[in-house]
């Protein structure tokens, strides 16, 4: 059982804030919540909405069909009371009397009303407001609005008794027994993972949907002693990051596809200079400026391949918040240990959705992998080691040269054929070493019925909808987490399945192309979505069912 509540209004009316409050209240009450956020690229007006899905089952997605529409404006009804939601009951702000003084906090007023409706105690909301807005000037008004909404005259709402009964969460969902649940967005998780991994510097230029991480880390500067700097453009960001990392600062940059394109020259430079770098690439639909505030998985190829020359890199794609923390941690681990380029491939659907967060995943302690021994003369920054991984030192300890040109062991430019090949081979050896080390990590997961012969294949943010869609089906789900180095052993799952279905949020099935390249296996059945919207559980279930017949 899953109940989906859509809350919508004009940008600026606080639909998202109301959804977050509701989500947090329900999560702390013990339910599993998934909060999907949908907003166009504008600052005031338009139609913003969230779908708060709540269940006593571990859900990570929302449905297309919602059980209630909460409307802060009339447009929300017009936009959403159609199609599968034609008969969905509506709580509209215009159907209740609200004092004019609550106009600016109508979202809190309606939340109070909603709580009454869901038969949940008002106290939950009051406590939440006190916790979040402690000491704020508007707190008393917020509390008053919540109370007033809770006690509003419900009779004016055009709802039937049976409609109301259908929404009684407490009656429908078994009383929850879970403890210590929290609500976390993918961006929260990336920022958390970075801090837990000992980030020193985050550099960025704003671009949706990577911006929340910039904001979150900027807000943590004092508490966690880090520097966040917004530079003049992504080219500056990525090249400055290499400078910063050269000095030993643990450095991460964040952007979306367009900004990543600008950064690619620096990724290539990372390849030859072997300066550690963590890149957070949060996808949105392209090409070009695309559909900025929506989601997609169209940037897999640039994460895997963009930048000239051949060099090792790690591409990791988390599918929820626990994985976002863990993958960020592993990205730092590889960058630091192998002086590697680690790309964290996320998207809007993970970064801006909120998930129920149960417990912190086990993390690795990321050690500063820096040689502090002073040497005479130039440090051998590119020592020809057997495993291809050279130790590094930093300025103020040694004289260290990092370079974008092909070089000798000390970082001096060379053009000699022998040395050029030798240095290339060193980096290739490092790639082999990294491939071995990656095996220690969970590079893929199998979800669902392990014995099933029906295999769904996907990566990243489709995880939630896929797991939810097949939860009562005869199917299992192969989720790829490391796309590079690619875990070739997944071939056996593909070959042993009777039916293999690819689910991707792009138009051409980019993952299936990569799978074909890496394993030779061709996936014929594909469910692709590329309208900027994520898969919903109910719609995806129907699509998978159709393919399984």
């Amino acid at each position: 059982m899953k109940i989906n509540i859509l809350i919508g209004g004009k940008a600026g009316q606080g639909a998202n804030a109301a959804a977050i409050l509701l989500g947090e209240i329900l999560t702390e009450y013990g339910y599993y919540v998934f909060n999907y956020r949908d907003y166009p690229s504008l600052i005031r007006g338009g139609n913003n909405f969230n779908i708060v899905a709540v269940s006593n089952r571990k859900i990570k997605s929302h449905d297309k069909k919602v059980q209630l529409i909460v409307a802060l404006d009339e447009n929300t009804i017009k936009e959403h009371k159609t199609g599968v939601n034609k008969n969905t009951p509506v709580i509209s702000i215009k159907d209740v009397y609200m004092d004019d003084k609550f106009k600016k906090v109508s979202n809190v007023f309606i939340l109070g009303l909603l709580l009454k409706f869901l038969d949940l105690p008002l106290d939950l909301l009051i406590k939440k407001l006190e916790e979040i807005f402690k000491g704020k000037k508007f707190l008393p008004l917020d509390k008053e609005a919540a109370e007033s909404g809770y006690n509003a005259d419900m009779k004016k709402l055009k709802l039937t008794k049976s409609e109301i009964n259908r929404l009684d969460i407490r009656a429908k969902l078994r009383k929850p027994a879970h403890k210590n649940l929290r609500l976390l967005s993918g961006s929260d998780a990336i920022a958390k993972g970075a801090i837990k991994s000992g980030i020193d510097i985050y550099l960025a230029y704003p671009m949706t949907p990577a911006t929340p991480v910039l904001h979150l880390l900027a807000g943590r500067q004092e508490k966690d002693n880090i520097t966040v700097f917004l530079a003049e453009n992504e080219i500056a960001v990525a090249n400055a990051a290499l400078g910063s990392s050269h000095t030993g600062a643990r450095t991460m940059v964040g952007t979306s596809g367009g900004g990543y394109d600008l950064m690619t020259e620096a990724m290539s430079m990372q390849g030859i200079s072997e300066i550690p770098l963590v890149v957070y690439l949060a996808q949105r639909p392209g090409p070009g400026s695309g559909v900025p505030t929506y989601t997609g998985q169209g940037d897999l190829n640039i994460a895997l391949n963009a930048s000239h020359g051949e060099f090792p890199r790690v591409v990791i794609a988390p599918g929820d918040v626990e994985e976002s923390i863990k993958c960020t941690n592993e990205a730092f681990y590889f960058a630091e240990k192998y002086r590697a380029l680690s790309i964290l491939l996320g998207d809007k659907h993970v970064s801006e959705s909120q998930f129920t967060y149960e417990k912190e995943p086990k993390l690795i302690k990321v050690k500063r992998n820096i040689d502090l021994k002073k040497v005479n003369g130039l440090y051998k920054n590119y020592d020809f080691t057997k495993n291809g991984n050279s130790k590094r030192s930093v300025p103020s300890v040694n004289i260290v040269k990092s370079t974008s040109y092909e070089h000798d062991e000390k970082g001096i430019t060379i053009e000699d054929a022998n040395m050029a090949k030798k240095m290339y081979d060193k980096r290739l050896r490092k790639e082999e070493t990294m491939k071995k080390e990656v095996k220690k990590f969970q590079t893929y997961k199998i979800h669902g019925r392990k014995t099933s012969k029906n295999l769904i294949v996907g990566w990243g943010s489709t995880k939630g909808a896929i797991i939810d869609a097949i939860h009562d089906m005869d199917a299992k789900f192969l989720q790829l987490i490391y796309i590079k180095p690619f875990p070739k052993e997944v071939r056996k799952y593909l070959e042993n399945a009777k039916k293999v279905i690819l689910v991707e949020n792009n138009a051409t099935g980019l993952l299936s192309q990569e799978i074909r390249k890496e394993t030779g296996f061709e996936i014929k059945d594909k469910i692709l979505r590329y309208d900027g919207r994520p898969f919903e559980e109910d719609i995806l279930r129907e699509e998978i069912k159709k393919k399984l017949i």
Partner: protein
Amino acid sequence: MAKKPELSTNAAPTWCPGCYNFFILKAVQNVLEKMIKQGKLKQENIVMATGIGCHAKIFDYLNVGGVYSLHGRTIAAALGMKLGNPNLTVFGFGGDGDTYDEGVSHFVHNCRYNADINMIVHNNQIFALTTGQGTATSEEYAVTKAQPEGLKIKPMNPIAVALELGATFVARAFAGDMEHMTKIIEEAVKHKGFSLIDILQPCLIFHNKLESMNKQFYKLEDKKHDFKNLDLALKKAREWDYEDEKSGIPLGIFYKVREPTLNEKLSNQKKLMEKGKGWFQVKR
């Protein structure tokens, strides 16, 4: 006094014989040697960022660490190093193509940021390593293989631009005047904040106006120029437009003012400076 530092690597220079880049390298080495001997600098605490071009080969020859960055990214890499460890002495060596064409956004914004970076532009008014095309500081009438009818575009005046953007140390030197150039570099290193030294550097192969320029040069200090006065600095900056062969070409420090640096203004950076630490020394 510290012992004489070794400021040359073993790399064999590939600059053209007699190239003025040798003079710039020597001037930098002179300044570093003097300041290291005086105990004002430590060799391992000095870093440089370079771009790509003839100028950038200095990376292989100067025995200090740093990042041989991509074309145009000199200042971005330098800024990164300064944020990564605010206690380093940071140099940038760029070409005119590097700094005023490919990397102009970094030049513009770093004049505003005022991080303590010594930015030295080897301004030969040409893309030299790519065999002689016109740059942002080439003359409107200059004819090149890529611009056979002449550039048809007026040069940019980086001194005036830097002043307008708030750079706190703005100077011009001539690569052929070792003593004067050395002195200006030393002043820039001592200055806290973003320093631009635009060094006019004849390119013996592709852009050599030594003869006319020699007649045009004069020193600002000889004219008792007040480098604390921004309006006067701008007036002096406008005296030469980077193409006139008749007007005077002022050399020396146009402007110098002490203002808080970027690192001093960012609280966590300031803490690192107070502790004399880089991020790599912070326990996590």
